[in-house]
């Protein structure tokens, strides 16, 4: 089916998110939609999927005018949306989530579980989307949750599939598999719209590329001839340097040291298995690994969010294994969390409140238990300016920010603290190239100031671009340690897959 958008305009209070946007996705092709954070990509797709009503413009499918009053209408018209954030019920199982709203029933409206499981299994097998239909969503890593979303859309018979940053959470292998799925769907005549910040991916899978900036279409590119640099320049409106310039680090005293740290889950299975590692002042240590191999738990062990069952965590020479999150924060650990919506911010709080979310209790933001609104505001204004959070309206809620801008807000909050250890989990997930460049520069600057930096990333490119030293996690253990200069992505990739020697 061919999809055409004509003159779509969508306004939020104070923000023109889409301004007269027109684009075409040809039948049986992949259209990549790229653009800076806040360019209006998600908004446009939310209009397409019936979640938002546009202020002007029209949607045509195979030349026929469509009116979507709600997402149900869009689904009926064959539009399937895999959102930037998942729409899953955390306490339901995989198959329950998938069939939600289209439950197969037996006589009398009784849920036909066997049929439901079978349908889910069939789709997951046909498209190579391995999932356990009975697993509970909240127990699954985000990577698998996303597969559930894809299965959900496929089960509803979507013919036009919209993926909002689908690869941001996937491992390199999973990305390959995902591209396999895309090829499969395309071969069956589906039309695909694919939003991404990874320009190489856009070039690899797309048949057409449309670039948005400031809510407008600023150009189209031909993936067979365009280069990542050209695309980046179109998106941001200036030249972007995609490589990180940095001198080798000069590691000093040890700031963070873990000795035989072990953590078990509720059933006694190890999540972290005798992990020993250290980070020194003035160095960037990168933790590589496929999502779900203990990186999240490692970070939570260091920050105190999860208790360890044995071993020691030392910070600046002192044992902090039993200290609270607050104590560790006060002692000097900054933390950019992996899950920005769930942990990194309070969606209903204003930007200025979110910017002091973990430092509200200290001077200058409070005095004798009273919030100092002047200081909070002043610092918020300076931070949104310095980190280019757009729109820079500090009275808006965190939830009204686009994904990348929310991340910038969190990075701004954590990086503005002058502390010895900075932990960044997936620091540039969902961020546009211009902002990645900026955040990477900030990370290197922090290191050059003599801070110890721990980066956790599933992006090998990012690990290699930033790290002085690389550790690989597999199955809750550190399976390899290499100086960045002494290794290759291929070698690290093998370790990540559990195959290194």
């Amino acid at each position: 089916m061919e999809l055409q958008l004509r003159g779509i305009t969508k306004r939020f209070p104070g923000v023109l998110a889409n301004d007269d946007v027109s684009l075409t996705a040809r039948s049986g092709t992949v259209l990549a939609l790229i653009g800076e954070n806040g360019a209006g990509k998600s908004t446009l797709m939310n209009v397409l999927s019936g979640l938002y009503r546009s202020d002007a413009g029209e949607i045509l499918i195979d030349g026929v005018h469509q009116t979507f009053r709600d997402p149900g209408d869009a689904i009926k018209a064959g539009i399937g949306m895999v959102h930037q954030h998942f729409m899953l019920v955390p306490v339901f199982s995989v198959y329950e989530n998938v069939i939600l709203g289209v439950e197969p029933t037996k006589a009398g409206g009784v849920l036909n579980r066997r049929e439901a499981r079978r349908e889910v299994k069939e789709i997951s097998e046909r498209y190579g989307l391995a999932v356990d239909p009975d697993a509970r969503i909240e127990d699954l890593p985000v990577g698998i949750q996303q597969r559930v979303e894809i299965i959900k859309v496929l089960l509803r018979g979507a013919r036009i599939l919209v993926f909002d940053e689908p690869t941001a959470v996937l491992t390199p292998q999973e990305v390959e598999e995902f591209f396999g799925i895309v090829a499969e769907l395309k071969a069956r005549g589906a039309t695909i719209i694919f939003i991404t910040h990874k320009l190489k991916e856009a070039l690899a899978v797309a048949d057409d590329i449309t670039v948005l900036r400031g809510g407008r279409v600023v150009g189209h590119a031909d993936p067979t001839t365009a280069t990542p640099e050209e695309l980046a320049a179109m998106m941001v409106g200036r030249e972007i340097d995609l490589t990180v310039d940095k001198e080798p680090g000069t590691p000093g005293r040890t700031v963070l040291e873990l000795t035989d740290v072990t953590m078990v889950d509720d059933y006694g299975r190890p999540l972290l298995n005798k992990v020993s590692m250290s980070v020194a002042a003035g160095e960037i240590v990168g933790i590589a690994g496929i999502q779900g191999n203990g990186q999240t738990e490692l970070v939570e062990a260091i920050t105190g969010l999860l208790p360890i069952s044995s071993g020691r965590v030392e910070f600046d020479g002192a044992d902090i294994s039993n200290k609270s999150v607050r104590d560790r924060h006060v002692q000097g650990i900054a933390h950019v969390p992996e899950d920005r919506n769930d942990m990194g911010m309070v969606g209903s709080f204003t930007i200025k409140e979110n910017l002091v979310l973990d430092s509200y209790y200290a001077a200058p933001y409070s005095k004798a238990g009273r919030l100092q609104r002047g200081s909070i505001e002043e610092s918020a204004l300076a931070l949104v300016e310095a980190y280019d959070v757009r729109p820079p309206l500090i009275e808006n809620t965190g939830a009204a920010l686009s994904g990348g801008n929310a991340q910038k807000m969190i990075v701004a909050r954590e990086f503005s603290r002058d502390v010895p250890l900075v932990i960044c989990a997936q620091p540039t997930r969902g961020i546009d190239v211009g902002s990645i460049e900026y955040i990477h520069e900030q990370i290197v600057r922090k290191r050059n100031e003599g801070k110890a930096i721990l980066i956790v990333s599933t992006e090998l490119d990012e690990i290699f671009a930033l790290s002085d030293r690389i550790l690989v996690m597999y199955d809750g253990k550190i399976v390899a340690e290499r100086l960045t200069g002494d290794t290759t992505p291929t070698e690290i990739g093998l370790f990540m897959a559990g195959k290194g020697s």
Partner: protein
Amino acid sequence: MTAAQTPPEVAQRGFVQQLTTSVNWRTGLLIPFLAVVTALIIGIVLIMLTGSSFGQAMDAYAALLQGSVGSVKAISETLTAATPLILAGLSVAIAFRAGLFNIGAEGQMLVGGMCAVFVGFSITGLPIYIHLPLALLAGFIGGAIWGFIPGVLKAKTGAHEVIVTIMLNYIALRLVDFFLKTELFQREGRNDPVSKTVEASAQLTQMLGWMNPALRVHLGLIVALIAAGVIHWLLFRTTTGFEFRAVGANPSAARYAGMSITKVYVLVMMIAGGLAGLAGSGQILGVLDRATPGFSSNIGFDGIAVALLGRSNPWGVVAAAVLFGGLRAGGQQMQVSADVGIDLIAVIQALIIIFVAAPALITAMYRLKTPAVSTQISKGWAS
């Protein structure tokens, strides 16, 4: 695709959050206003269904208005009824803000009121400026203890505060019955459960008593308004309030930020209990002068409605309490002069709450433009 149809705001902020805190003027003012108007209109229909004419229904409403704001006496009655509602509403509201549902204001009122009455009658010879604050303090502490129990159970064991507070309401009710029969409390020479009378030095003075002794509005109103100001200040100007709101809106972000959820749950329930305790004390020291079984007369439950209508904003709570107080006071007049049962008031109150709780109804009825969906949904990795 049910998930996608859930208004994302709801999913992100949780049902209770969505219901109880206003995001903007629309949910904070417009919807409550339309809810009240709609409920009153339906009230007309109900009166007419009982066989009255439209004119008679209008007469009833005229009486309602007359009885709530039509005279100094009426206004005094409205404010007298509003006083405990403000405090009970604040109790429920502050707990809502921290993500807890305090169904226990009723029991906390009773326990607080009993403490206040005890201090009120047992100590003699103190000047009013010491005795009265002491009695109020006792009431606050009594309620706070009754709030501490569900708070600590929730924080330490995960016991659901709704269940625990409901049970504590029953316990409090029976404890009052029990104590009123003990020598300590029971009035000399009485067989029925009624407490000794509060000393004049512990009574909340009638503010307009010099004009007319029948004007019952008492100093408790000032106490309630100060409480609203203090709670507003606490919630929005202090680090403690920041923690309450963060824990209520997103507990996992609060934990990430190093806040102690245990501390918040215990503290907020103690404050909530204390406020309800003050509501009970106000009734004892300002209106009744003694304790009788069930003297809280469901005000604690009405506090839930007040908090909902006021969107858990302290000044919203004050406004909602005055409205409900007016309905109570005016309802009496309506019953007397227009012969329309006071039950209608309960129905109208319930309708208001239904409309506030289901804003979609109001939105559809008045064809308001659906607000822009402000966020997507819960668990994801990007925003």
